[in-house]
């Protein structure tokens, strides 16, 4: 057979794709979103805690944050997911039964938090000390000044790096298949892989790849649009909110923090 034709059919066999599509849409996509969105929320909250602990004056906050970051950033994601998903499974069994999702989400969050913590910390530390002084001079406590003045500006500066991390998280969500998923728990990658294994044809896996791109590429553009709006503020007259508004004349965001 013509090798090029074979190659084409290995990746672009429409019948295989059509066969896998319904399950990708109804099972794989929702499951990937559940994993990625929950881990993004939990990971960002935890990352913010790590960031603030990391710049604390108390070494008892700084050190644990440092060690945590080094450990969870330094381990392979697959190892962390297995260690937590399998290692804590007996404990999880007592709390929420055999569902591997909670521990999978926890593991993904812990990994993401290590990276997001560093991203947020670099953003927060890039805000001029004069901003803190200005807020303190008005009578704000350190914590309140952080919350309403420093952190909103710092986070705004690192939005692109934060999106990098969310993209990594969406991709890493495929690794929960290590923990053993029943049919209804399979996410995009696992469904693609299963179809590829049974048909001996990679087209379903390629389709899964297209789904990942459909999630990650628009995410970048959505955040860029938000970024633009934050730079220039809302239309005059609209009520604005200090958490959402951000600076006009800021240097570029801190560089990516990809593994």
């Amino acid at each position, binding site marked *: 057979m013509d090798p090029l034709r074979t190659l084409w059919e290995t990746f672009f066999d429409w019948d295989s794709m059509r066969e896998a599509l319904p399950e990708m849409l109804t099972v794989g996509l929702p499951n990937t979103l559940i994993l990625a969105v929950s881990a993004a929320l939990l990971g960002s909250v935890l990352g913010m805690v790590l960031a603030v602990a990391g710049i604390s004056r108390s070494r008892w906050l700084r050190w644990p944050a440092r060690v945590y970051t080094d450990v969870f950033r330094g381990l392979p994601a697959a190892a962390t997911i297995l260690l937590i998903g399998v290692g804590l499974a007996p404990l999880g069994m007592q709390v929420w039964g055999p569902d591997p999702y909670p521990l999978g989400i926890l593991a993904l969050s812990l990994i993401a938090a290590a990276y997001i913590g560093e991203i947020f910390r670099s953003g927060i530390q890039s805000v001029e000390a*004069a901003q803190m002084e*200005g807020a*303190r*001079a*008005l*009578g704000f406590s350190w914590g309140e000044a952080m919350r309403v*003045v420093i952190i909103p500006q710092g986070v705004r500066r690192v939005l692109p790096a934060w999106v990098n991390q969310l993209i990594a998280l969406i991709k890493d969500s495929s690794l929960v298949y290590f923990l053993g998923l029943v049919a209804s728990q399979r996410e995009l990658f696992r469904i693609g892989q299963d179809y590829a294994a049974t048909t001996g044809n990679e087209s379903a896996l390629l389709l899964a790849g297209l789904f990942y791109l459909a999630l990650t590429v628009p995410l970048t553009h959505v955040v860029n649009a938000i970024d633009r709006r934050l730079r220039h503020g809302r239309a*005059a007259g609209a009520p604005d909110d200090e958490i959402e508004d951000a600076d*006009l004349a800021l240097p570029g965001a801190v560089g990516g923090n990809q593994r």
Partner: protein
Amino acid sequence: MSVDTSTSVSLGVRDVHLAFGANRVLRGVDLEVARGETACVIGPSGSGKSTLLRTINRLIEPDRGDVLLDGRSVLGDDPDALRQRVGMVFQQFNLFPHMSVLRNVTLALRRIRRLPEDEAVAVAREQLDLVGLAAKADSRPAYLSGGQQQRVAIARALAMQPQVMLFDEATSALDPELVKGVLGVMADLAAGGMTMVVVTHEMGFAREVADTVAFMDRGVVLEAGEPAAVFEAAEHPRLRRFLAQVL
């Protein structure tokens, strides 16, 4: 200018010392400002003027000495509560760039004074009106000139109804043509009865507006008195040399 200055109080700085490591920045500073009066602090850079201001509202804690408001020491007070009573204006304005001008002024009113939104906005609009910037309420600070930004910073401090105002080289970062507007606001405030400590390089302002001029050098007030005495009849050689350089 109809800023409420009825709550202005006297300010006393007594023998304040401060060192950063081996660098003794303040070496026993004394300064008295009567209620409603304005003291201008002049002197070469590095003489401790800005640091002195920061020890008054305890952005920096003095090592020794005392700071009195209305005759009472403030060193035992909660620093956050103290800073609500002492307004401060900075050389670089320190406006919050991610908020509108209006939000800059209402922020502390809402979050610290716990005023409802509409009351905070009313206070802020009145203050912005007094500095001539009501029309800029919805702009971001970056869209304003330096002089306008500094007037917003003054409005932001005044909105908290401080008992004392501190100005740290408020016009030093401004283009020359913008200095006058800011000094005008400050002069109105002084005439209105606000107790003020003004660190400045504007000798004209010090001469016309100050009740007391204090010359600081190497961490101490070398000479202080009425503007005429300080400018026309300086006693200390270092003050005479300084005046010869700046006038």
